């Protein structure tokens, strides 16, 4: 069976979620590998969310928010713009490729852009292959043993 990447998409309520909705209502076709989570602002995206998704089996994480200057809460997306590059730099030291975590600005009218971003990201991660953090980090084993002890 060919590898189908699992991507967690964390989208801001005001722009990117609406943009993704527009892609849907306009009947655009895009790859079904992204699982969408709606947050009120891309500034709400704690780096913990990204790490947890990757640690629990996601192959990539897409974060999308309003274009700089358009934030519903004035500057939430500016904070994200500062956080994500630091997170990516840190993930590089964990041996995680930069293509796996992607920050994009998608406005409510950019259904087409959302489609392109999802398709492009899915193809790039398909080439990289599975991340498989659960096994490599030993998390799967630690969990199995903890369960055994409790039982």
């Amino acid at each position, binding site marked *: 069976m060919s590898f189908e990447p699992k991507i967690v998409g964390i989208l801001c309520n005001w722009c990117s979620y609406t943009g993704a909705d527009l892609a849907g209502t306009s009947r655009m076709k895009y790859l079904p590998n992204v699982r969408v989570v709606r947050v009120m602002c891309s500034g709400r995206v704690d780096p913990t969310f990204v*790490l947890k998704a990757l*640690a629990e089996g996601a192959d990539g994480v897409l974060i999308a928010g309003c274009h700089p200057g358009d934030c519903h809460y004035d500057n939430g997306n500016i904070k994200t713009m500062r956080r994500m590059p*630091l*997170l990516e730099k840190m993930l590089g030291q964990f*041996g995680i490729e930069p293509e796996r975590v992607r920050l994009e600005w998608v406005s409510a009218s950019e259904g087409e852009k959302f489609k392109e971003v999802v398709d492009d990201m899915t193809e790039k991660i398909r080439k990289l292959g599975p991340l498989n953090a659960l096994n*490599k980090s030993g998390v799967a084993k630690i969990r199995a043993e903890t369960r055994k002890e409790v039982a």
Partner: protein
Amino acid sequence: MAEKLKVGAYWAASCGGCDVSTLDIHEKILDLIQLVDFVFWPVAMDFKYKDVEAMEDGFMDLCLFNGAIRNEENEHMAKLLRKKSKVLVAFGSCAHMGGIPGLANFHNRDEIFQYVYKDSPSISNPDSIVPQTKYKVDEGEIEIPEFYNTVKSLDQVVDVDYYVPGCPPAPHQIWGVLEAVATNNLPPKGSVVGADDRALCEECPREISERCVDGFIRPHMKIPEKDKCLVEQGIFCMGSATRAGCGARCIKCNLPCRGCYGPLPGVMDQGAKICSALASVIKADTPEGVQKVLDTLPDPAGYFYRFGLPKSLLHRRLDNAPESPDEN
């Protein structure tokens, strides 16, 4: 007088600083020996494995286990001491979260052996000998414990009752913990004891005005101003993502917090939290500007996870991890 508490202390992959810190309770040590009998403490007295094996299960009232799980011997002792003690405490950063030895999780066994036994400038090893777990000599086969690829915290190999954080735990906190056990005044299982539930910033004596930086510097590059927040001066401080309880001992010596007291309650990953906090004080509103500030941070992961890599969400570097989940 009631019978004295039977206490054991052990060091796995650690430096011995936690044991020294126990002695730093100074003259209170005299009160301590009124309360407890040390039945096992290899750093201070002569004990053998067979002395522990001869104990009945649950013989020790309290076992203070410091050090991470680096090799097979550490894991064996952790399991043995768990069986022999009523209360097992992960004592100090290494047992709590992996500590400094846990930074080795950015590498694997082969890389570590390559450097330590072959490439290190201070080594002379013309025959390229590296440790083997088994070796045949005339007298038979000899064995040494297996060195693992991944360092683990104590609770990743056995069930742990309490955690005492710190590198090393502050002496006044150690005394508090011993007193709590002696008076049977114990919190719920799994608690972090001997530390605060607030961030270090709460007990930091420095003033915060406006946190906004256009570049980070390393602590040796500047003598910081005495009363001003270190982050504001561009010095990377872990205080906002770290538990208080140590008495801000590094801060008072004009050094930034390194995060040894571990994450705050409810936090899954200390590194992710400090990443979030520090990135938001960067003074830049364009991707290029942000990149310029980040270029002044040579090793973010090493700093964010200085004491907690094995306990972080990812546990270790992934691209050089053992392929099989069964390999240690």
